């Protein structure tokens, strides 16, 4: 639980420059439109409704985060958007065209490391362009640019097993971007990294996003990450996965780690937390508490 000294409703109060940003954002074309999406899984134990009536739009060059408790259907949602899974009902439109299967117009970065171990960094980045028949020196120099962008020029001839986790995910981002997708889908890409690397990666990602014409849909379960990265945060409810609220993050851009203690930032986190863990109280209350220390041996 977050200790809150500021007004918890502050997350709704937007400074003029922030409001202007959001107004401008909503004037932009919609890249991805999700309309009344349903997904049910049939299994031996019965049917599971993973997603129920999910609708939202993502605007061009927007950075949108999806957050929700574990098992609420975040991965299912993004896999449907990527075309790796089919929906039970509803529509997914990319630039107005329905999505039918996986394609290079939607780049995806997975939580697990999915670099091809038999290809070098450069070859991994060139994989997408190669699939569409691009090769030769121009494709290679373009790949180098993408590798430069994620700061791994020195490693272009290394194999994935020689890279750290953070470096692998940077290559994965470069590989997805090399196809020049309309939207970058990221499913907890930094979930497996240690806290420090994760912070670094978040800054890298913001930098990349700022310098490219790219729209990002980013899944996370980390409040800080969501509040730090996103323009808007889509909060999902669990069982079934429904849209709870779409929060417009009132923290101005460009973002920096210094903003972690601003009232807007804290209020935003507080709001998300309330939505994800409604009236649960302190988690300690839920635990049984047998006493296992001798009487009169208090440490407090």
């Amino acid at each position: 639980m977050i200790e809150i000294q500021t007004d918890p409703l502050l997350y709704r109060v937007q400074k003029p420059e922030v409001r202007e940003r959001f107004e401008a954002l909503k004037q932009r074309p919609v890249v991805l439109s999700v309309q009344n999406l349903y997904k049910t899984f049939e299994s031996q134990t019965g049917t599971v409704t993973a997603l129920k009536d999910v609708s939202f739009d993502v605007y061009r060059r927007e950075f949108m985060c999806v957050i929700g408790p574990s098992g609420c259907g975040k991965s299912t949602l993004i896999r449907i958007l990527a075309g790796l899974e089919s929906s039970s009902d509803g529509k997914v439109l990319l630039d107005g065209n329905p999505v039918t299967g996986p394609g290079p117009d939607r780049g995806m970065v997975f939580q697990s490391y999915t670099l091809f171990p038999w290809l070098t960094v450069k070859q991994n980045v060139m994989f997408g362009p190669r699939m569409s028949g691009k090769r030769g020196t121009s494709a290679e120099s373009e790949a180098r640019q993408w590798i430069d962008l994620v700061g791994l020029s020195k490693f272009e001839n290394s194999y994935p097993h020689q890279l750290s986790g953070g470096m692998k995910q940077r290559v994965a981002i470069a590989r997805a971007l090399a196809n020049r997708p309309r939207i970058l889908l990221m499913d907890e890409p930094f979930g497996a990294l240690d806290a420090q690397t994760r912070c670094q990666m978040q800054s890298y990602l913001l930098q990349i996003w700022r310098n490219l014409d790219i729209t990002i849909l980013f899944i996370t379960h980390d409040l800080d990450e969501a509040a730090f990265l996103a323009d808007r945060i889509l909060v999902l409810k669990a069982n079934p996965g429904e849209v709870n609220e779409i929060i417009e993050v009132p923290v101005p851009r460009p973002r920096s780690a210094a903003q972690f203690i601003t009232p807007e930032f804290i209020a935003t986190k507080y709001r998300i937390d309330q939505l994800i863990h409604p009236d649960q109280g302190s988690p300690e209350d839920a635990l049984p508490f047998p006493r296992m220390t001798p009487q009169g041996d208090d440490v407090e």
Partner: protein
Amino acid sequence: MLTMFSFSLPLLAWCAVSYLPFLWHPDVELQISADREGVTTVYTPGDRVSEEFFPEFEAAVRTQNEEVSPFMSLDKPVEAGSESSVRRSNKKVLRHLAPLLVSNGWLTEEQTKDDAAIYVAWKEIATGARLPEQPALTEENLEIVRKNWALMSRYSDSYNADNFVSRPLLSLVPQGRPANPDYLPAPHRVLISGFKEFTKPAEAERPSMWQRVGHSMRIVFGGFLLAALVGVPIGVICGTYSFFSKLIEPFTDFFRYMPAPTFSTLLVVIFLANDAPKMALVFIGTIFQLILVVANTTRRLELPLLEAAQTLGANQAQLLTRVVIPGILPNLYNDLRILLGWAWTWLVIAELVGVKSGLTEFIETQGRWRNFDSVYPVIILIGLIGFFTDQILSFIRGFIFPWTSEGPAITSTPVAKVLLFVPRWFKSAVDERIPYQPESTSPNKA
């Protein structure tokens, strides 16, 4: 180090059992044998008899000698007409000493029927001019030699076929030393026989050992490569598409339980003579296993890799050629390594199919003659070929697949460890000889 032990321990055990007379040695290897009256089983020196039987054998000969000795006296009249048969058996007695003389170096192998030379040796031993040492004669047998010589010299001082002893001679009492059964020859005998067999040149109808090795390897590798050529694509397709998996795998699974050797006669009918039915047997014995293993390996490829490739725009054909195949290659390579070992186990049965051939034919024939000291080198060689092929394959795996996290697995194979031990030891020995020169620039170095 443990790797070395794993090889030297069995070797040491073999040497110990072979060279320490008090370990095991349940048999007696005859150095001097004797004929027994009315017994048709004849033992010659070099034969092995059991420890229990040997005293019986000795006793029988002694009893026989006791019965004979009264007739040695010249005073006793000889039964008319028995002279020639007595002479014949006396010549046998004379020659019973020959193997001992050969092992003492008095005679060559070719002289074992040279009665004149043997006669001289009898004389020398009886008079004490020269005594055999390796092996020596027992006191009992020396006495027998003297008694016999006393009689022989009465007839003639040197060998004379016409005037040979016509009164019965005493038989030498069998002598022997503890030995292991012939199916466990001593290491040095295996080495010697092995060297002989492997250096024998080829003759008509009889290929040299290396030709046999080549022949056997052709059958194993030929059958295996064919199986891999056919089986790998099928396995990959089964592992990739569940449609083919369901179509092909159940039957394959059933078929692999039918023992390949049961098809041998069928294969001969189909493929006729020569190597074709043999390779076919290795093929049948390997391919079904191979399909299932490869299919399994293909299925084990991480799904996220396939999904990532799909989101990068790979179509079905590209998924197969650009992701599935390169993705499974390192594991496929390992599978094939293991299956090659599997193929080796079919060698002997394959070479028995139709006309016996290759190393198996040699093992079969020599084994029948109980020449186990010639059989072992071949068995060991087959083991070594299989072992080293595998080691080499696992050695070069790291170079073929530099992206696998093990990297070049130079130092991880047992053979490599042993091979690298020598240069490493050498290097450390050299390093010790190079005097250490402290860097003058670093003051805080003690």
